[in-house]
């Protein structure tokens, strides 16, 4: 087969629109006459307690206010939870976190609605909130969700009897998504109870379902649509729903189009974040630093409700091994309830925290034993005979040793290790650190039934193609990749494939665009739809030319059989005229995978994505300031569908993870109030945080060993964990002050946390 579009560095389908400001986000849509605006609000004082007073009369009487909505206004179900039914759209009798929505103002303008919301009188019988993991552990209440563990061997005994052992504890901070486009939804009422909801969401089906359940109507009455998001990163997987419900409720109450767009501060206060964890562990190893047993407890701040915390904490467990073989283990998790916003999906979905634990442990063992950290890592890698994970999945595609070996060479690890040692010998205040860390990330939703997708493809009589599928575009380039797949199947130019907005009206019952699965699932579904149509067209061409169907080839905009040839458009027209359908749905589900959570065994992941990075840092031991001076990355995307898009995911994921591990710090005060709710106080990386010396390469792959779309690999989440090498390099730099002593470094490695680590020696 000639490769026309697959593997090409094609630009993002909206690139030219982006640079002109012409790409339409929901707030850019022309508002129909009479559109109303919704501003949700909450109790400014209080994070936990009964609502003792709710006086909204001044809000109602404010000029320009059309309605004030509370729980009483909801026709059916007051819930927007993705799982357990524990996320009220409006708090009714009590609040469980600071920022929980109690009412919403509907007004002629957004400005009027926001000003009016300030006039509410709300009183809370304030109880002391459980804010941190440590607070939650102190409260004698059951955990939010049942603890869960993977266990094998007599871990306690192995550790106790080992001459070489290590223990440690550290905190891993959460992370605000900081999608540049804040949460927004725009609901337009239709006939006979129908409603079209434009939502900036990764999960249109859930928007559809939650709005229908709230209004007490059939799902079929509600259509949820999303052309593009201005970033998602997991923050719009389950937590776009509440705002869509509010817009829909306002539209339902007023009969007018209604828009709900959160102010940035409200967005940061009212929506969940990456889970922060407290980690405690002990491990035993042999005299070569090879691990013999690991006992770890990963304790997560889930917030006030379940949201996706169960699956997130599970994924932390699934990644607590990273690329390393543990002969005996107790990988335990606690899922703790706090009076904070419900933490949610964020790129990596618990995986980053699990891997950070594994890498902290490797770094600590290296510091303790005096063996170079890279050598410790290599000795512990999965290998033949040591290739079964703590969840019973045997690795079939393990390339971590090769990825590491290649990067070690191209990054000149050994040479720089020596240079850094000599620099540190002479530099009194500033110290350098170096670390090379691998990543192995499991691809598939661990809730197995979610690994399915649908697509809808039409071929028009002029040979142009309409493409629709269940995946959403949040900037990751899913739309263009799937369009490349369809163009490839039909052998036509990419420009003839029209990309269209994701809508529940075209493809139903979809899974969220999450778990890095977008291209794997939707690419296959769209390819299947296209192949069905192509098969019909091929059959028709075979009939016209009186040749075997197997002789028909689609390539370069033409359909050929030997010397016979016509354009794709000509065949489309001929097929239509012969009363044959040129439209098809396509469906796909991931084969082979299975998972039994009760026994903790199965094959939850179809395959793994691998990568490694090597980072060098410079720290100031008097102030804790830090600079990343060089980063080398080698990452495996299988056979790349689009190298430009894939490199973009790798670099972008790296920098986002860099923020999580360095500058991004969520600070809650003792009252449970988030103090970092704007970019003035919450610092995501900016351009100067990216090292000038930043070398990124794709691993030369022969293709995914599993039968994925054109043998590519998922790339959305795995790169987020590459900057763990930066954090480990900071540990390396700090430990140079006092070799043999493991510094106590928490994540993020802010200047303050780095200085504390220095002081801990």
């Amino acid at each position, binding site marked *: 087969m000639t490769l026309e579009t697959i593997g090409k*560095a094609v*630009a*993002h389908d*909206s*690139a*030219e629109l*982006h*640079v*002109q*400001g*012409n790409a339409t986000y929901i*707030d850019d849509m022309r508002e129909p006459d009479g559109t109303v605006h919704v501003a949700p609000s909450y109790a400014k004082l209080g994070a936990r307690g009964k609502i003792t007073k709710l006086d909204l009369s001044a809000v109602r009487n404010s000029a320009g206010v059309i309605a004030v909505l509370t729980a009483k206004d909801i026709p059916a179900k007051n819930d927007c939870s993705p799982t357990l039914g524990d996320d009220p759209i409006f708090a009714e009798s009590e609040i469980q976190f600071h920022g929980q929505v109690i009412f919403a103002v509907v007004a002629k303008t957004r400005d009027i609605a926001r000003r009016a919301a300030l006039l509410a009188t709300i009183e809370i019988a304030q109880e002391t909130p459980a804010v941190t993991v440590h607070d939650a552990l102190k409260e004698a209440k059951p955990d939010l969700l049942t603890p869960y563990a993977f266990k094998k061997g007599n871990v306690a005994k192995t550790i106790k009897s080992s001459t070489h052992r290590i223990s440690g504890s550290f905190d891993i901070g959460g992370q605000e998504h*900081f*999608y*540049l486009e*804040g949460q927004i939804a725009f609901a337009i009422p239709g006939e006979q109870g129908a409603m079209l909801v434009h939502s900036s969401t990764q999960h249109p089906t859930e928007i559809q379902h939650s709005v229908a359940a709230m209004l007490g109507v059939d799902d079929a009455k509600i259509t949820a649509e999303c052309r*593009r998001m*201005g*970033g998602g990163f997991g923050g719009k997987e389950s937590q776009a729903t509440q705002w869509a419900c509010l817009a829909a409720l306002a539209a339902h109450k007023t009969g007018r189009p209604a828009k709900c767009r959160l102010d*940035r*501060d409200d967005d940061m206060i009212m929506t969940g974040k990456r889970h922060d964890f407290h980690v405690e562990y002990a491990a035993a190893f042999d005299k070569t630093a090879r691990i013999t047993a690991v006992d770890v407890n990963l304790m997560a701040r889930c917030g006030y409700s379940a949201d996706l915390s169960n699956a997130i904490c599970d994924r932390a467990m699934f990644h607590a091994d990273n690329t390393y073989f543990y002969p005996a283990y107790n990988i335990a998790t606690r899922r703790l309830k706090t009076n904070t916003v419900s933490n949610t999906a964020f790129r990596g979905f618990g995986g980053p925290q699990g891997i950070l634990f594994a890498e902290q442990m490797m770094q600590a063992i290296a510091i303790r034993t005096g063996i170079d950290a890279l050598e410790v890592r290599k000795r512990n890698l999965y290998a033949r005979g040591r290739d079964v994970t703590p969840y019973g999945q045997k690795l079939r595609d393990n390339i971590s040793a090769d990825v590491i070996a290649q990067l070690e060479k191209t990054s000149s690890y050994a040479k720089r290790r020596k240079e850094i040692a000599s620099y540190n010998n002479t*530099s009194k*205040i500033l110290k350098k650190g170096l670390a090379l860390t691998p990543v192995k990330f499991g691809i598939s939703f661990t809730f197995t039934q979610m690994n399915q997708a649908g697509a809808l493809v039409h071929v028009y009589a002029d040979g142009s193609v309409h493409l629709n599928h269940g995946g959403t575009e949040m*900037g*990751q380039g899913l739309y263009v990749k799937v369009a490349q797949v369809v163009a490839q199947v039909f052998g036509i130019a990419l420009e003839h494939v029209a990309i269209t907005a994701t809508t529940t009206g075209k493809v139903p019952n979809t899974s969220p665009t999450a778990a890095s699965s977008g291209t794997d699932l939707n690419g296959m579904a769209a390819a299947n739809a296209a192949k069905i149509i192509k098969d019909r067209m091929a059959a028709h061409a075979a009939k016209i030319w009186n040749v075997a169907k197997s002789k028909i080839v689609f390539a370069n905009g033409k359909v050929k059989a030997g010397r016979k040839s016509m354009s794709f458009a000509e065949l489309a027209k001929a097929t239509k005229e012969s009363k044959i359908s040129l439209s098809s749905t396509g469906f796909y589900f991931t084969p082979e995978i299975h998972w039994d959570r009760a026994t903790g065994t199965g094959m939850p992941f179809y395959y793994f994505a691998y990568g490694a990075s090597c980072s060098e840092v410079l*720290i*100031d031991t*008097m102030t*804790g*300031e*830090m*600079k990343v001076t060089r980063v080398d990355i080698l990452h495996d995307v299988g056979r790349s569908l689009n190298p430009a898009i894939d*490199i*973009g995911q790798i*670099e*972008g*994921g*790296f*920098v*986002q993870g860099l923020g999580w591990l360095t500058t991004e*710090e969520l*600070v809650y005060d003792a009252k449970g109030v988030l*103090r970092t709710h*704007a*970019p*003035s*106080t919450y*610092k*995501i*990386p*900016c*351009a*100067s*945080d*990216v090292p000038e010396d930043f070398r*990124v390469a794709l691993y030369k792959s022969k293709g995914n060993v599993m039968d994925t779309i054109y043998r590519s690999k998922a790339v959305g989440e795995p790169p987020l964990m590459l900057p763990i090498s930066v954090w480990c390099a900071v540990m390396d730099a700090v430990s140079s002050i006092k070799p043999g002593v493991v510094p106590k470094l928490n994540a993020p490695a*802010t*200047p*303050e946390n780095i200085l*504390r680590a220095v002081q801990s020696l």
Partner: protein
Amino acid sequence: MNALEFMRRGELVRIEKFAPDTMLLEYLRLTEKSKGTKEGCNEGDCGACTVVLGTPDNGRVRYQAVNACILLLSQIHGKELITVDDLARGGILHPVQQAMVDAHASQCGFCTPGFVMSLFSLAHENRKITRQDVVEQIAGNLCRCTGYRPIIDAGLAACDSADDHWHKAQAEMCTKLRAIQGDLFVGDAHSFFAAPSTSEALADLCATYPEATIVSGCTDVGLWINKQMRAQPKIIYTGAAQDFAQIVDHGDHLSIGAGATYEDAFEAFGKISPDLSGLLRRIGARQVRASGTIGGNIANGSPIGDMPPALIALGATLYLRHGKSERAMKLEDFFIAYGKQDRKPGELVWRIDVPKAKSNQIFNCAKITKRRDDDISAVMGAFLFTIENEKIVAARIAYGGMAGTPKRATKTEAALIGKTPQEAMHIVLDDFEPLSDMRASAEYRSTVANALLHKALMQAAGETDLQVHI
């Protein structure tokens, strides 16, 4: 004049009625319905709303990127307004836009218009640019998707020069902008926007309307309006009075008009100390530095503003003006307590005189933040040591972030006298009892403030072989 006037897409726009606290972004998106410019944070920290303003400058037009979300609509009086919607002409992308496409520099695309406009203004500086120039230019533009590398590449590819429509039309545009002249007053005594064109008129107006909000860059007042929802019915804008922004070099000291922006002051401050220009590069980002003023940073009394500690250490004198009467004070005396300054209603922060360090003086300053660029200080320290016969004979030390106001460390200053810098290194700073907040703990602030003192002493001791700062 009684109407707002500015140039937009080659045409003069005239607006006679508007709420004085209308923000430019609000005007663009809701009134003009130009949707290219995005709202990311509505507080001037993400840059998604970046637009470019053209100001007449010696027959040319000076193009500067600013944040439309924290800029009053009326601040563009007499300027040319360019937004991302304007750049492509006749279906052809602007070179900056094309470079962004070619470099795969957009993913979700929401921040992209802001980056395009920041790079557009850099291109119009028409100089050979380096990677560092691009990085500095876009430090105030946040992107959550790309990791910046492709955006930096696009900047390097397209920003060395701008041979575009705007460059070619500069002289003509300059003439049109120059024609918009005179004192502006729109509204009535109950609700108005006023922009006097001379400092004398400005001082008079402030005295006449002591209850009015005096706005310079609006980088702080913008937050009162957008986030605290505080209505500002009467606004006196200082930015139209060019003589209010003058910087005069008197040889032994600089005299800085309160209306001088950080950008305006950059070169002059560089003459005092490279540390000072280094500090300026880390205050806000270019959008904020193009708008924010030295005087505004003093007048708002922020305990974490970066300029006051540096200026206090240098021994700056502050001049205040009420109508025709002027008074002077040491800058440190202006800051009485948190939220309280020695400024009467109707009185203007007028001018700051900053002595240059003498040959026997060593000045340095440093700021500590979570993120290097565009972040507010946890601690900022500034140090001026006068050294004679290897001994410290005078010391001026001021900190930000350590108290409710920018403040001198007088106890420590006294303790240093008569010691060599090496001898002074055992002295522990204990002038302050800082607070814990989201930027740092009290403990960290104390430790690091002390570290900055010791680093300053090391530098004063001439330990040149020692790398003291990253």
